[in-house]
């Protein structure tokens, strides 16, 4: 019988080898795919145990904070947003049951303190619990509040950025939402199904027809390509046939033979549409692309919360080879859709002497031990020469001084800007203003849009520009 007993032992060893094989498969070889399994809530639960870093505004105001719940080994941290809805859309939220969006998602690695594998093993050996880094945002509460008050409940968006660094000082989307409230599943559902789409960040996700603000882009192409000068003269009579269809000036207003400065100051559609047709699609698209059109903005938000600006056919971006009425693109019509962020970048580029800086919501990462990593501004593209920028700057000042944008004037400071009024249907407009101040030494570039209003760009958005500009220039440089 002994031989059989030995064989039996062999069989048992074989079965145990099977156990070892399966255990090693689950715990080592297949571990990463099991961790990625959507039914596996462990990674999420695990992150709850980490004290997520604070998010603060440029003046140190706490935007997001993690509060401990429970005791001892069973302690978790829950996110709280002391400022409520003020920073709602750009910052987003982070809750286990809701996931995360916005800044909370795009800066998750810093906020939970994820490091390289090697460093975290070292930490673990030293018995350090994982702690998140504090991230300072460039957003400024005063500017943010000025934008919210300026929009006064009207649907729309405001983006304010520092031309020389790309730092976003204000980003507001109305209707807003309070990130604290999404924890409640009923509220979350209501926010998701609400027709006014409060969770949708209009500043970076919404595509609006830019109206006449687009003429800044057209002017850039016209001047920088060398085909036009501020003194170039064209006819401003209305209507004129553009792409086979008659085009009129706003209110059917007639202009004679006028130069570019006059045409920009008075936002003469027929004049600029001719420029668009003369430049052609290739040159127009070349400058649009330099401004960052046709690709997602390089902002530190999750890609799904960023939309590219450009000429759309359905969801498809069109290019110079597609049949496009470029004359109407030049005046912000056709199927052109732009985000408020993109138009803020346009204003900032002119303000920054033709150099576009990458837009940024973060300005500093502060590790628990006090070490800091500061944002070093990155150049995105040289859109136009300094001379072109300077000529455009002068023309845009004239818009605010004596043209359509007088409502944006700030006393004692030169303001450069451009209005836009995109007619959606009779009497319903998307009102725009983009601009920067002070024109001689630009500190802030701002884009403002109010959706579906009966008003025009200048009177509607001009005062909002003024309020946000004043708010940022007053505490200019604080914290930044």
């Amino acid at each position, binding site marked *: 019988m002994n031989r059989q007993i030995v064989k039996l032992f062999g069989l*048992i060893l074989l079965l145990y080898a099977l*156990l070892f094989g399966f255990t090693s498969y689950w715990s080592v070889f297949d571990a990463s795919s*099991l961790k990625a399994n959507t039914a596996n809530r462990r990674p999420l639960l695990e992150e709850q145990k980490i004290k997520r870093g604070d998010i603060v505004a440029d003046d140190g105001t706490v935007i997001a904070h993690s509060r401990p719940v*429970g005791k001892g080994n069973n302690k978790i941290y829950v996110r709280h947003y002391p400022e409520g809805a003020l920073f709602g859309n750009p910052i987003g939220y982070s809750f286990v049951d809701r996931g995360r969006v916005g800044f909370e998602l795009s800066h998750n690695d810093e906020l939970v303190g994820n490091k390289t594998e090697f460093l975290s093993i070292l930490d673990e050996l030293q018995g350090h619990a994982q702690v998140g880094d504090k991230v300072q945002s460039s957003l400024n509460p005063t500017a943010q509040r000025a934008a919210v008050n300026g929009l006064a409940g009207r649907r729309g968006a405001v983006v304010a950025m520092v031309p020389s660094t790309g730092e976003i000082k204000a980003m507001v989307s109305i209707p807003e939402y309070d990130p604290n409230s999404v924890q409640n599943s009923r509220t979350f559902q209501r926010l998701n199904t609400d027709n006014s789409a409060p969770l949708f960040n209009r500043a970076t996700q919404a595509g609006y027809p830019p109206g006449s603000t687009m003429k800044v882009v057209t002017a850039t192409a016209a001047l920088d390509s060398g085909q036009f000068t501020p003194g170039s003269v064209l006819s401003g009579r209305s209507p004129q046939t553009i792409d086979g269809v008659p085009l009129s000036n706003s209110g059917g207003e007639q202009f004679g033979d006028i130069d570019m400065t006059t045409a920009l100051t008075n936002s003469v559609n027929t004049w600029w549409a001719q420029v668009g047709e003369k430049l052609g699609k290739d040159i127009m698209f070349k400058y649009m692309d330099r401004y960052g059109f046709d690709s997602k903005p390089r902002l530190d938000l999750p890609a799904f919360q960023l939309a590219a600006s450009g000429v759309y056919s359905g969801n498809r971006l069109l290019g110079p080879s597609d049949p496009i009425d470029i004359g109407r693109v030049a005046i912000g019509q056709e199927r052109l859709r732009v985000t408020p962020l993109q138009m803020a970048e346009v204003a900032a580029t002119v303000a920054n002497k033709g150099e576009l800086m990458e837009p940024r919501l973060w300005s500093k990462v502060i590790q628990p031990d006090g070490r800091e990593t500061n944002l070093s501004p990155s150049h995105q593209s040289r859109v136009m020469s300094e001379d072109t920028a300077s000529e455009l700057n002068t023309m845009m000042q004239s818009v605010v001084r004596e043209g359509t944008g007088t409502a944006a004037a700030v006393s004692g400071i030169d303001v450069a800007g451009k209005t836009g009024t995109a007619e959606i249907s009779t009497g319903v407009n998307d009102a725009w203003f983009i601009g920067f101040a002070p024109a001689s030494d630009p500190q802030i570039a701002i884009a403002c849009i109010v959706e579906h209003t009966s008003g025009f760009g200048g009177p509607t958005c001009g005062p909002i520009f003024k309020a946000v500009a004043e708010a940022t220039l007053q505490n200019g440089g604080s914290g930044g």
Partner: protein
Amino acid sequence: MSARTRELFALIPVALLVTAGFTAVLITNSDKLGNLSLFYGAYFLALCVATHIIIRIRLPDADPFLFPLVALLAAFGMVMLYRLDSGLARDQANWFVLGLVLFSATIIFLRDYAALERYRYLIALAGILLLILPRFLGHATNDAYLAITAGPVTFQPTELAKICIVIFLASYLNERREVLVIGTRKFAGLVLPPLKHLGPLLVVWGAAMVLLVFIRDLGSSVMFFGAFLALIYVATARISFVIIGLLMFVLGAWFFSHTAAHIHERFEIWLDPFKDPGGSGYQISQSLFAQADGGLFGRGLGDSLVQLPGATHCTNVTDCAILPAPHTDFIYAVIVDELGLFGGAAVVLIYALISERGFKTAVLAEDGFSKLLATGLTTILALQAFVIIGGVTRVIPLTGVTLPFISYGGSSIVANFILLALLLMISDRSRRRVRLQQEALE
């Protein structure tokens, strides 16, 4: 060095494991647990020494490694239970006392285990009654009838039944093994036993099928039938019996997996646990997720996610548990989670070593009954470990048997201590004979 002194030295790693384990848990959970609870660790070690003394007095020649290996498993269990809930560790230590009492009682009152042969039918009857009892008195846990609850105590009769059945099979096969072998016929290359002896084989197969359908537990069914096939193979040296038996079992299991809904569901979950990871596949998928968290070295004792973090109203270990039954069925998954592949491999290795000592005992034994009894007890213990670890790691469909000497639970501890007592008695007798022969030669 005498066998007993060797045993005492072999207990040193056990003491180290318990001390290191308890200290590790205490460091991680220092805010939750008081120093007082370290007492359970000391209590457990004292019990090990007491057991050693009983063996030294009553079974001086018994295998020196069996008990330390069992103690090592128990130490693993104690540390894990302490980590889950210090109250569980206290209860488990108390169960060890009861186990130890019955261990001693077995050794002291059953002076000659050969006497068991005389009562084999009575024992068989007791075993069968114990098996089917939960169906009438008990309640179903996860659809299987394995436990009886009387007041605060839950009793799993299967644990005791396995010993009864093995005693019966060893005795029966020892008597019949010659007749089973002679008069065999060849059919299609297979050696078939004479028809009249096929009867008992069919009876045991039928019993296993009844277990499958009646008790609704594939695990116990595999365990019992596996032990039976092992014994019939060792007794007759006829692999054909094993093949026929296996075919019959697979056929039966296949049939019932298509006709009985609960068995069918078990198979479905096993084949694709992620089809319904929140419902029927919850247990096994959580088990695999826990093991994935462990990796090579584990997350460290006390550092794995056992309960929902932040939950405030958990009164015991199964409340707010992410992994269901972390102290019983899924304790192996917790071990892999916290001690990694190395921890899991260590547990499997200890079972392999226990099997080795058990089979060694069987090989050394002189008479057929002793050989078969030692083989049967070792096999059923080894298979039990395989069935539950295999279930937790998705080698086989998940079933609800305990992990011997590690899982929390009185019946399991008590029954396995009796099993250990029998093995040590067989070992003591055969090794004494070998020692006396050697001494005589000198």
